[in-house]
């Protein structure tokens, strides 16, 4: 093998009380895509943050194109040619896409910021890298969808001088179509001789795009695999250190009476939406990001307004004007953006899980701690939420455990209808199967469940029926037996409507 563009030698990093990385060796060659896989906490993020200069390493060397770049600042790491596409990009809400792309390195002309040149260059970059038409360079950062924010973040990384680029969970907010564009881009970067690091929980993507796979577990390199010579079963076994069923299959359930019924719903985002979910049934809601799925959940939940149409629960018309009304009626909603909309990061696990049932746990307005412990804590245990204590701040838990806290909240609330928006976003493989089993159990107890997801295998595994949203309209329901990735995609892209 030629001299690698990035060579990591014996890197170690410890945090108080824990070894995050132990003497790690790995290399990325020019024009090679190396995937990092491992469960949450395996050390992937730590390694990326050492490379990007966010963390200092305790020991070892990082050689980037012949130069030692251990112990450099984030700016120096960037100038040396390492670029990180972050999982949750920081987008400034009040400036345009073009300015966001050039932030920190504004184009100037006679010492003044040259806005027209930046717009032009931003447009040219989007065009060049295959994302033309997806974003308006004059749009405010605030107006961007998570997927568009990600594209802006990718553009930031692709400024001149890039030698190694690392993608941290790049597809968690992208749709299948956008993911394809990203893969085209990665293939082009590979052809240009750039070293690429690809971090993802989604194994099928890793199998598709990478040349080699580095498996991490508990801060150690477990194995380096040639992608063409391995299988996802083998990877999962190495990741978790045990065999795991590769795919999850939902048990057959009996469908009861219709619980939730939406008829002729119109809103700013939707045209003529009708759907129904029976007790014990899981309805999957597929579609591209921006098609209006999250908005539909929020309209039903009373967080966003609707113009006309009926929402019925057990045959009775509901007049929901706010989430308070929805919760009272028996509808639960676990939002996609758990840090932004789901959790109170500075409050405890128990308090976060009890949120939706405060009034039920209280007598004369006084919360009763024993009731809290009796009614809520069992769900925290059942979900196997890994927390030192019930009083731990939720912000200190890992992503998968945070998601479980949101789920625990709705388990405790026992709604008749539960809407889950991307329930396993950024959750690792082991926790995912756990969450699927839970959703499954809830359905078998008679709850009507709507799962919104961008991950097709997830929908195919979980849902009894799947409806696909495209530009604010819903496809007819597809029964589980007839659902395939292809026909869902057809509807999602609007080619079948």
């Amino acid at each position, binding site marked *: 093998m030629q001299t690698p563009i990035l060579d990591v030698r014996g890197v170690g990093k410890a*945090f108080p009380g824990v070894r995050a990385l132990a003497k790690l060796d790995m290399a990325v060659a020019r024009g090679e895509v190396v995937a990092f896989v491992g469960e949450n906490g395996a050390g992937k993020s730590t390694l990326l943050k050492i490379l990007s200069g966010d963390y200092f390493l305790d020991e070892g060397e990082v050689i980037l194109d012949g130069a030692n770049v251990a112990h450099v600042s984030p700016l120096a790491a960037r100038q040396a040619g390492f670029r990180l596409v972050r999982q949750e990009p920081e987008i400034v809400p009040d400036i345009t896409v073009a300015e966001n792309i050039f932030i920190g390195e504004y184009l100037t002309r006679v010492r003044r910021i040259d806005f027209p040149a930046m717009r032009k260059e931003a447009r040219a970059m989007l065009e060049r890298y295959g994302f033309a038409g997806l974003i308006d360079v004059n749009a405010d950062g605030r107006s961007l969808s998570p997927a568009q924010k990600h594209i802006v973040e990718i553009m930031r990384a692709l400024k001149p001088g890039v030698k190694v680029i690392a993608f941290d969970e790049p597809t968690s907010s992208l749709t299948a179509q956008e993911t394809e564009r990203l893969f085209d881009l990665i293939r082009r970067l590979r052809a240009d001789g750039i070293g690429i690091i690809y971090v993802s929980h989604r194994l099928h993507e890793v199998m598709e795009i990478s040349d080699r796979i580095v498996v991490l577990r508990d801060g150690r390199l477990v194995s380096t695999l040639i992608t063409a010579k391995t299988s996802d079963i083998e990877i999962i076994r190495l990741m978790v250190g045990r065999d795991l069923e590769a795919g999850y299959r939902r048990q057959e359930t009996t469908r009861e009476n219709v619980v939730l019924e939406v008829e002729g719903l119109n809103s700013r985002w939707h045209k003529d939406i009708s759907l129904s979910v029976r007790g014990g049934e899981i309805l999957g809601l597929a579609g591209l990001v921006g098609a209006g799925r999250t908005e539909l959940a929020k309209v039903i939940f009373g967080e966003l307004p609707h113009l006309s149409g009926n929402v019925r629960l057990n045959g009775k018309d509901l007049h929901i004007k706010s989430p*308070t009304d*929805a919760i009272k009626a028996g509808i639960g909603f676990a939002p996609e953006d758990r840090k932004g909309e789901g959790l109170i990061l500075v409050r405890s696990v128990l*308090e976060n899980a009890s949120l939706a049932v405060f009034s039920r746990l209280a007598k004369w307005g*006084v919360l009763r701690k024993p009731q809290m412990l009796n009614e809520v804590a069992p769900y925290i245990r059942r979900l196997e939420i890994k927390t030192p204590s019930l009083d731990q701040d939720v912000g200190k838990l890992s*992503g998968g455990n945070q998601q*479980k806290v949101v789920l625990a909240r709705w388990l405790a609330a026992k709604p008749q209808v539960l809407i889950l928006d991307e329930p396993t976003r950024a959750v690792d493989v082991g926790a995912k199967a756990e969450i699927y089993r839970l959703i499954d159990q809830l359905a078998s107890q008679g709850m009507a469940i709507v799962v919104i997801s961008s991950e097709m295998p997830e929908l195919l595994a979980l849902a009894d029926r799947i409806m696909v949203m495209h530009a604010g309209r819903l496809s007819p329901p597809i029964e589980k037996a007839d659902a395939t990735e292809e026909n869902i995609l057809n509807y999602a892209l609007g080619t079948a409507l």
Partner: protein
Amino acid sequence: MSRITRFVGAENLSLIIALVLLVALLVSQSPFFFASRNILNIGQNMAVVGLIAVGMTLVIVSAGLDISVGSIAGCASVAVAIMVTDYHSIAGGIVVGILLGAVLGLVNAAIINVLRVNPVVATLATLSAFRGLAFLIAPDGKPIGVLDETFGLLGSGRWFVYDNFAGVPIAFIILIVVAVIGHFVLSSTVFGRSIYTMGGNPAAARLAGINLNRMRYYIYAISGALAGLAGIIVTARTSSGQPASGTQGLELEAITSVFLGGAILAGGKGTIFGTMLAVTLLATLSNGMNLLGIPTFYQLVAKGILLVVAVAIGQWRMARAERLQAAAAAKGKDAA
């Protein structure tokens, strides 16, 4: 030690240590400090700021701010003076003073809720407007002398007086009662926990079914009512209804106490217990500076510095918590 830490909270422990050190310093510097009369004076002086700080804790935990409290106290002071002198009704005066405070608090909440004005700006505006209102309701804008002795007890009266014990100030007892109720409400009721929720993450609070606007009306009304009560005590102590003197600058002291007591500007954190410890610390500090003959101007500078220190400590705690969080996210210990 660890059991004590758990009982009072790590943040409060440092306040208690600071208080003990301060007391030790003052005892060594002034023979008057430990006299029971002086200690009880501190208790009496605490009452006014303390009452406002209880309401301010609710406001700040909900991620709001109320800088109009001093002006509200001024309005209540004038109103209670008019009731007591012109209508000879102490009970009526107290009710009117507290209700007026609550109504002015509702005005604050309405500006924030309906007009969507940021709480700092909204209450900065009413800081000025309510002070003007206090001068408007006072005849000719002048202080009103209140000579009713029974009413005066609210300010300087004492209970449990024995031969060599100066008695506990009634104002201090009122503060303790209010603080205990406030602590119970904030820590143990649905209303109180909802304040933490809305302060910690308003979007999540709304999606969890909490009506943020309604909460804000309650919170600012409580803050206003307690400011009104504080204004009544000021009137009783100074024997005069004062539109401005005696109530100016109370907001600064109350806000400083709340931040020093462990709350953060972003909301979602803070306790009445912590606030009360901080109020005690500040009252002791200012009493000590008086005993040591430090001029008022220096005391003002010291108060300003304390506010910055209090917020800086909060920021430092948050930064540390975030570092720990990042470390937790990176390590394998809590991986699912």
